[in-house]
């Protein structure tokens, strides 16, 4: 993966730059020692590593503003970073850029049950928000699997999801307001404790912008009361098709489960060997359907889901009868990634989304690809919303296998786009899928997106080299080709 060429003139001024940053962030907030910077050289996409030029750890919004303003003025690239849990390389440093770490922004600022909101600094973890309100029975709904470590600031950058998206939405549907700093140092507040922000929905475009538009320094999210009851059904199917049909039938019955997760045979076996969740091993696919809500509703719907599953040809159905049993059903699914890690030296986790009806086709084509690339694949699948996580098994020590795994992954994502889906459902484009963007978007589509960046960061200094395969100067993007003349459509009715 080619990153922007480091600017030698910037690297030559490293000491001067570090001193200037120390004037803004005094004490231990500026790191230049290689050993100390080592922890910042990669994120959760560990295949890529790069030491940054300098790491800055500001404590206040004012410091963030001054750091960005300074970098903007002298043309230094900035990579913002939360906990570094990005699976797509979103926080991968640049050799001639600084890492702006938000780890010291770790305070909960306000808990407001009357308005059902929590306001925090961006370095607070996703789970930290829930933990702060759990004693009153509240929680923050989006629950990415890294929730114990990932920060809410990072969640906004990536528009993080989780297993409950179909019913409760992604980050973008649960954030009410932010304070952010633009590359020029401007501090901008969007939204607040009210339900919709005014003017253009800049909060909407910031969420999922992968740190390319601004640095979030404060976040207000909405919180929900915990459901009264949670119960799960574990259903085994003789084929992935019947499992997929069952998902469609549940939705057709007007039921939107809190979670609906599917695993294929290789994933079932890997998980079962690892955590002994009691998954059936003689089936091709399992589906975990979790229903949450008022007790009477959950009990009613459990019956409905059981009946639907039976009609769909399920070969095994188990309903959780206790909280422990529900957790056991989930244990296998939640351990699916490490379980696959046990049966293979390395694996790549993909993240495409497809229209659900295309699942049988995609699984069949994936089996063909598996044969062609000579690599095994296990599938876990957010069945409710069509988000696939194929895990490609490979051994990095065998020559050529990493390349084969990456090629296999690219083929899967191209297939997702081909059937009407997208390259990434929740992990982000980052550096990992950057060069695949051309399969989903035309150059015109991408230029239209990149022009938004020009409004926020006209010199392209914030997290360059991520998301978009080509860096364009804003002057170039701004150029217009206008053909003067007659209304070119003579038949266009006019009156």
């Amino acid at each position: 993966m080619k990153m922007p060429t480091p600017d030698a003139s910037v690297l030559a001024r490293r000491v001067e730059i570090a001193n200037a940053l120390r004037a803004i962030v005094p004490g231990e907030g500026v790191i230049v020692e290689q050993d100390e910077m080592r922890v910042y050289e990669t994120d959760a996409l560990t295949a890529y590593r790069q030491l940054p030029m300098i790491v800055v750890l500001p404590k206040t919004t004012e410091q963030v503003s001054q750091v960005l303003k300074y970098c903007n003025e002298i043309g230094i690239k900035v990579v913002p970073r939360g906990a570094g849990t990005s699976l797509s390389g979103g926080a991968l440093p640049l050799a001639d850029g600084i890492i702006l770490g938000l780890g010291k922004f770790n305070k909960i600022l306000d808990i407001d049950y009357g308005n059902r909101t929590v306001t925090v600094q961006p370095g607070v973890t996703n789970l930290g928000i829930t933990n702060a309100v759990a004693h009153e029975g509240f929680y923050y709904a989006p629950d990415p699997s890294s929730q114990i470590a990932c920060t809410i600031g990072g969640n906004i950058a990536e528009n993080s999801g989780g297993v409950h998206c179909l019913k409760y939405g992604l980050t973008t549907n649960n954030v009410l307001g932010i304070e952010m700093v633009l590359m020029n140092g401007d501090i901008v507040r969007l939204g607040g404790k009210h339900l919709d922000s005014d003017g253009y929905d800049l909060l909407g475009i910031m969420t999922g912008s992968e740190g390319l538009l601004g640095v979030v320094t404060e976040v207000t999210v909405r919180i929900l009361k915990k459901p009264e009851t949670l119960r799960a059904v574990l259903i085994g199917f003789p084929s992935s098709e019947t499992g997929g049909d069952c998902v469609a039938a549940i939705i057709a019955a007007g039921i939107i489960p809190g979670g609906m997760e599917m695993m294929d045979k290789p994933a079932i076996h890997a998980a079962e060997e690892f955590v002994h969740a009691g998954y059936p091993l003689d089936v091709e696919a399992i589906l975990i359907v979790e229903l949450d809500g008022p007790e009477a509703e959950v009990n009613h719907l459990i019956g409905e889901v059981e009946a639907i599953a039976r009609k769909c040809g399920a070969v095994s159905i188990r309903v959780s009868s206790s909280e422990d049993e529900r957790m056991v059903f989930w244990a296998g699914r939640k351990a699916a990634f490490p379980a696959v890690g046990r049966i293979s030296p390395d694996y790549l986790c993909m993240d495409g989304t497809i229209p659900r009806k295309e699942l049988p086709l995609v699984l069949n084509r994936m089996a063909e690809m598996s044969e062609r690339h000579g690599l095994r694949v296990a599938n876990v699948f957010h069945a409710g919303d069509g988000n696939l996580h194929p895990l490609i098994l490979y051994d990095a020590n065998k020559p050529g296998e990493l390349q084969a795994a990456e090629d296999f992954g690219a083929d899967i994502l191209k297939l997702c786009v081909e059937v009407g889906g997208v390259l990434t459902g929740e992990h982000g484009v980052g550096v990992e899928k950057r060069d695949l963007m051309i399969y989903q978007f035309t150059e015109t589509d991408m230029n239209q997106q990149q022009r938004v960046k020009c409004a926020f960061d006209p010199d392209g200094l914030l997290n360059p080299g991520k998301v978009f395969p080509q860096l364009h100067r804003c002057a170039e993007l701004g150029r217009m080709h206008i053909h003067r003349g007659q209304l070119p459509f003579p038949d266009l009715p006019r009156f």
Partner: protein
Amino acid sequence: MTTHLKPADAAQALEAVRWAISEEAPLELVGHGTKRALGRPFQATHTLDVSDLSGLKFYEPAELVLSAQAATPMAELEALLAENRQQFAFEPPDFGPLLGGEAGKQTIGGVVSCNLAGPRRVKAGAARDHFLGCKAVSGRGEAFKAGGRVVKNVTGYDLPKLLAGSYGTLALLTEVTLKVLPAPENTRTVLIRGLDDATAIRVMALALQSPYEVAAAAHVPAALADGVGVEELGSGTAATAIRLEGFGPSIEYRAGKFRDLFRGFGSVEFLEREPSLAFWTAVRDVKPFVSSPEKLVWRLSVPPADGARVAADIASRLPAEAYFDWGGGLIWLAVDPTVERAGQEVIREAVGLGGGHATLIRAPDTVRASADVFHPQAATLAALSARVKESQDPKRIFNPGRMYAGV
């Protein structure tokens, strides 16, 4: 001379935009024209009437997705969804009658462009939360697509969010794709009468803090209760309403829970399906203010717990009446037409204390030209908004000045 351009399809719409760009002639984008009185009055050389860009592209109930050309009437799509026991969960209001027009005329593109949302906003979000993708024409005269047709999608910037609620100032939508959801099997409304505004806000907060999945919470003070036009509501008493939706056994169960929870606030009554539907449609479409067309109507979005304070503050300084939706977070306010500049200073000062914004929804052109229709923004935010407009529509072809002067 104003030209009325009426492209027959998206290709012609693209040509029309290109021509307007070459002429540097601003366009007013119009579907069925039900929202022309929304926003600031502005000067456009030509009208681009896209009402022929109508018709379903696809609807896949099992996939919970629908795609249609931008000027497809909402009524058509809602009828189609109802046949399949589905709905747009954000429950878009129909402002036709409020703005002096007909009901049932608005288009899906108009709903998305204004990011409308009804009482279910507290649970299901607004149009922007259901808007998955689109095809559009840019201010550079290029056809582009954004987003997709699946719910889980973080590929590139979320341009659909930016376009939703941009009042047609950033691009011309030609085709939109939205998430749809199952319609509830049944619905019932829990009703408490006679509460003052502040107590009502507390009652609604209690409901919204409960685990009983409230699908809307509104409060109509006594003076406006008749204007709702629902007989079962009775006359001359305030009504605080909590909507329950879902499967029969669940509604029954939750109704019982609320009866217990609200004991101590007065007698708890219920509106069954038909009157409940009528009540929420009236709240959604601002019916209490439809029959007094001379009054100026404001829409205030505030932290829900601030609702009563903001309304009382304004009413103590201006001749104004208000009712509350979104648990207090949405205030519909009618101001006497004699009030200077529609009372914007008083209203925005009251809102400003706790955060939020006020939009002037209904007022004569002259008033909307002199008052700020949209909430004035802080300098850094206003500058950013102006740069966003510049980036998407550098020649200011699309509805220029409809939201802010110069944007």
